[in-house]
């Protein structure tokens, strides 16, 4: 029992540290819980999709795909042109999703080809590739638009007629194009989700009853309990006076996220998903058993890049302003940091870790400026602290992973020698 607990602790140490940090941050910030919850709700809706885009390359053994920045660029290229030609509302949003797909797929293909030439150094390559692509992206928007490429509305050009302006306001065209389609209040969502979960779990329990071991039974009842408590919390919030009753949950955005989460889980039940896993575990064995390793690696990056493009569109329609030269720059850092905080590593990542990571990372993001102000008398300390957290957790996680691989390699060498 004792070793079990210790195992659990060491395995999830990053997540545990961040749970503690979040709690301390919330206390130190002295901000009201409903405020933090509301902010968090927005940020989870905005960012989760992007983080989910990272999972497949991790499983396929390509590490953390810093190249999702390139997917975001594809999205922004399409959005800027679409907006200038008058795309609005849900139709405009879907148009962007559709048009960005082939472009992101092409970018993803090119990324994959480059990464196949740098096996073992995929992460640094994808990062540098992101920086390089950013140069080409700037060339496109600062120089080619207005000279070679036409744009729908002169309003989006820098005075002088060459180059696209710095910030594009999405109010009135794509802002909340997805979020505002259909939303429900928090308690209603909890009641519905709780009811569905409980019903589903009870049904599964009935079905599996005969073949269950004792432990499985326990776990199953615990899950049903959690589903029920979701329902109860929803009911309590609905019939008492509290702030949470007024918060909206964007249902269609949530649906998009759920769909992509299901996709990420379902793909590993297919032949293609198994191939990804085999390639990720051992390229040599995969090759011997007839999997086209290079093709699978490229495909995993193509999927990731396309998902990143969609994620960026969802992100921007919620944010409401498109910073032409800045919106995409930091997304890989933040998405990767969130995934790692959720407990993922360079070789393992799940949907659950992604969601948990987004919640923890963004809680910290919300509270750290105020916490910094209350603790050190300077809000900037908190702001620098959260950037440090993002870089630090990536550095730590990469370091730990490299150390483990190196140690394993050394052990293997020793055995070979003996």
């Amino acid at each position, binding site marked *: 029992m004792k070793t079990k607990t210790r195992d659990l602790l060491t395995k999830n140490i990053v997540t545990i540290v961040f749970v503690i940090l979040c709690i301390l941050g919330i206390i130190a910030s002295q901000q009201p819980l409903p405020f933090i919850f509301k902010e968090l709700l927005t940020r989870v809706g905005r960012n989760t999709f992007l983080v989910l885009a990272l999972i497949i390359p991790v499983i396929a053994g390509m590490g953390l795909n810093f190249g999702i920045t390139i997917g975001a660029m594809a999205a922004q290229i399409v959005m800027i042109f679409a907006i200038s030609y008058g795309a609005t509302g849900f139709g405009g949003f879907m148009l962007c999703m559709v048009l960005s797909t082939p472009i992101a797929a092409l970018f993803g293909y090119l990324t994959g080809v*480059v990464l196949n*030439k*740098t*096996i*073992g*150094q995929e*992460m*640094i*390559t994808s*990062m*540098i*590739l992101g*920086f*390089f692509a*950013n*140069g*080409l992206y*700037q*060339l496109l928007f*600062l*120089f080619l638009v*207005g000279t070679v490429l036409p744009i729908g509305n002169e309003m989006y050009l*820098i005075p*002088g*007629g*060459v*180059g696209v302006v710095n910030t594009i306001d999405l109010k009135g065209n794509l802002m909340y194009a997805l979020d505002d389609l259909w939303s429900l209040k928090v308690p209603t969502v909890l009641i519905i989700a709780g009811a569905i979960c409980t019903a589903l779990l009870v049904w599964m329990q009935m079905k599996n009853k005969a073949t269950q071991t004792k432990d499985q039974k326990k776990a199953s009842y615990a899950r049903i309990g959690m589903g029920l408590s979701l329902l109860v919390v929803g009911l309590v919030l609905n019939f008492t006076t509290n702030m949470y009753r007024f918060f909206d949950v964007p249902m269609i955005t949530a649906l998009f996220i759920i769909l992509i989460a299901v996709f990420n889980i379902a793909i590993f039940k297919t032949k293609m998903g198994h191939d990804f896993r085999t390639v990720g575990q051992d*390229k*040599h064995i995969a090759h011997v058993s007839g999997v086209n390793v290079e093709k699978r690696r490229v495909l995993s990056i193509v999927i990731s890049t396309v998902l990143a493009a969609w994620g960026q569109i969802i992100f921007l329609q919620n944010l409401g302003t498109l910073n032409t030269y800045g919106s995409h720059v930091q997304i890989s850092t933040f998405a990767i940091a969130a995934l790692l905080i959720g407990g993922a590593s360079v070789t393992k990542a799940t949907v659950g870790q992604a969601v948990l990571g987004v919640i923890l990372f963004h809680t910290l993001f919300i509270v750290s400026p105020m916490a910094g102000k209350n603790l*050190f*008398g*300077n809000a*900037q*300390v908190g702001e*620098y*602290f959260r*950037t*440090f957290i*993002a*870089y*630090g957790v*990536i*550095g*730590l996680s*990469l*370091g730990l*992973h*490299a*150390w483990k*691989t*190196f140690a394993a*390699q050394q052990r293997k060498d020793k055995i070979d020698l003996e």
Partner: protein
Amino acid sequence: MKDKIMHGLKSIGIPRLTIITLLIVIYIAAYVLKLDVAQLFSDNLVRMGMNGVLVLAMVPGILAGTGLNFGLPLGVICGIIGGLISIELNLTGLFGFVVAIVASIPLSILTGYYYGKLLNRVKGSEMMVGTYVGFSVVSLMCIAWLVMPFKSDAIRWPIGEGLRTTIALTDYYDKVLNDFMKFRVAGIDVPTGLLLFFFFMCFIVFLFLKSKTGLAMIATGSNNKFAKASGINVDKSRMIATVVSTILGAIGILVYAQSYGFFQLYTAPLMMGFAAVAAILLGGASAHNAKIFHVIFGVFIFQGLLLAALPVANVIFPQGNLSEIMRVVVQYGIILYALTKAGGGQ
């Protein structure tokens, strides 16, 4: 003969050839556009000396097999701290500059030691880990700059908390090297002191590489197992390389700052490693091999390109920041090229 030329061209590589041609074209364009070419060339020399030592810091890492040292910001930060200590003591001129270097060296040895220890544990992923260690330390230092107990008015904000984002060196050691024995020939200002210092540092590194320690280091980089078999302590060699690289990074930023006239704190050191890496790669180095010549040649053409492209591009294409775009594309393009050439290829 023809084969020889083809072989030579191949070993230079198409990207490098393109860049060198581009630089020549830009200089010709500058002449045609009646820009002050002599002035441009003087500035090119200054920029070369200014960035040279930072680029030189790449050599030990590459030779010892730790790869391109993207963790250069660690050394840069040590250098800045040394520089600030010298300002705090109110030292000026060459003496202030020397004290800054002396103060930064123990710090960089300590930092390099721990950084080297880390790099020895993550063999195979040094570049990625180094990049993010650099990023983390830079962002952690952002907090440190806010709370550091420096007292000098030149360093602190006059009101409010923390240290200034840029610290002017005008009253301290601004351009001490640049102006040392400076002379003018055929319209070209030669920053003698700066260049002498740069070449002196190159010479020291050259001597170091020829020493027993240096040779052991090179052996480590070129063949790990062979080095081990011949009794070289591989980890120690890599460690020494990292320490030397960090020290050179610290000295490099001090040379840079005295020429630039400012220290830049907070997020400024974040991307400095990439420019240095790009310069040495352009000079002909790879992820596994580097020579002093690559440093000198690389920093000259890379900085020359950045410098000369700006006025030329501004005349030809007044709109848009074409030279900045070119910097990004060239800088990361050459790193990407080197990475694909190094290739894992399993």
